[in-house]
């Protein structure tokens, strides 16, 4: 068993962290309320860039795990972050924060939906918010790409893998499990070999 060369959260230097379960709950509720068309990019902006509970690298690594596990990736991420700071109660609190208020909202929307679905203003507003969300998610991806500089893999390999992944998922609409297993597996094997040397 070797010790990690990187400082881990919880060691001296005291990186920012959630202060209490209610801090965790409120933080995840606010995250969820800002996430239209997906919460993940909001997590990157709020928890990494603003609150600094996670570094870019930790976020990417946690997300890799969240993505490969069954369940919605942002739900998995909330379980992992909550669990890291407060154990099982933390995981459940983060999950509850993520789901409780949005659930009430989405059910209210469902009740209103039949009445207003045909309104062009509502449809337009939803279109506008989706476009903003697309911009937000794209920025999150570009910002995280900077963290690849610290990958054991050469930058050119990382860019090549990411580019192939984008073509497969966005343009060719490949099923996600194949991309994760195939391309992700390739990345893992290459990294494993680089870590040996």
């Amino acid at each position, binding site marked *: 068993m070797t010790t990690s060369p990187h400082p881990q959260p919880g060691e001296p230097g005291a990186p920012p962290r959630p202060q209490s379960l209610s801090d965790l709950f409120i933080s995840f509720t606010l995250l969820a309320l800002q996430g239209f068309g997906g919460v993940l990019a909001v997590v990157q902006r709020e928890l990494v860039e603003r609150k600094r509970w996670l570094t870019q690298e930790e976020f990417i690594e946690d997300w890799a795990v969240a993505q490969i596990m069954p369940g919605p990736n942002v739900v998995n991420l909330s379980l992992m972050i909550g669990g890291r700071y407060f154990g099982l109660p933390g995981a459940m609190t983060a999950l509850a924060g993520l789901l409780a208020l949005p659930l009430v909202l989405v059910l209210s929307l469902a009740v209103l939906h039949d009445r207003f679905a045909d309104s062009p203003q509502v449809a*337009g507003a939803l279109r506008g918010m989706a476009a903003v969300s697309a911009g937000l*998610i794209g920025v999150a991806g570009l910002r995280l790409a900077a963290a*690849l500089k610290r990958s054991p893999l050469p930058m050119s390999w990382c860019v090549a893998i990411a580019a192939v992944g984008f073509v497969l998922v966005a343009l060719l609409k490949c099923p996600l499990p194949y991309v994760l297993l195939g391309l992700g597996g390739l990345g893992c094997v290459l990294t494993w070999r680089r870590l040996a040397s």
Partner: protein
Amino acid sequence: MSPAHETLHLALAWSDWLNLFGHFLLLSTMSIGGAISTSSEMHRFLVEQHHWLTQDQFNAAIALAQAAPGPNVLFVALMGWHVGLNAGSVGAALFGVLVCMVGIMTPSTVITYTAARWGHRNRDLRAVRAFKQGMAPVVIALLLSTAWILGSSAGGGQWRLWLLSIAAGAVIWRTRLHLLWVLAAGALLGALGIV
């Protein structure tokens, strides 16, 4: 103008609810990439096989959950809601939400929590480090793909919407302005018919 909406009047027995619950438990264990990746199987089960949900309700559930704030998995809650409504009451609808959400969340939560704890305890193992760092480029590709897909599905990819996406991205990149303001601006532009 308004299409003739199909309506369903169901009488669900306890065995049906149990069947529904069991099916969502099963789907949860297979939901790698999120619950949305099992939505075609949900469609087969709820709409085609059991006729518990109409096609309109199925589509609306996914679209509404995308449009509303919060994790997209809430489309599952909306499906449960509509199955319950079809069975006759708001009480049944709330019960449907409970059945579907607990079903879709429980197995994946247990698996992920357990695996993540193991991974964190063993984070210095070469295999664990290789997995996490090796997946990073694919993770970034997925984020960019999501942006692309969301951007092109919003209104068929008209240039003004793309421009809005890029402008919003620039604001978010350069400033620490709260996201809700940017979202509100997008909603306003859309509601006024400018984009």
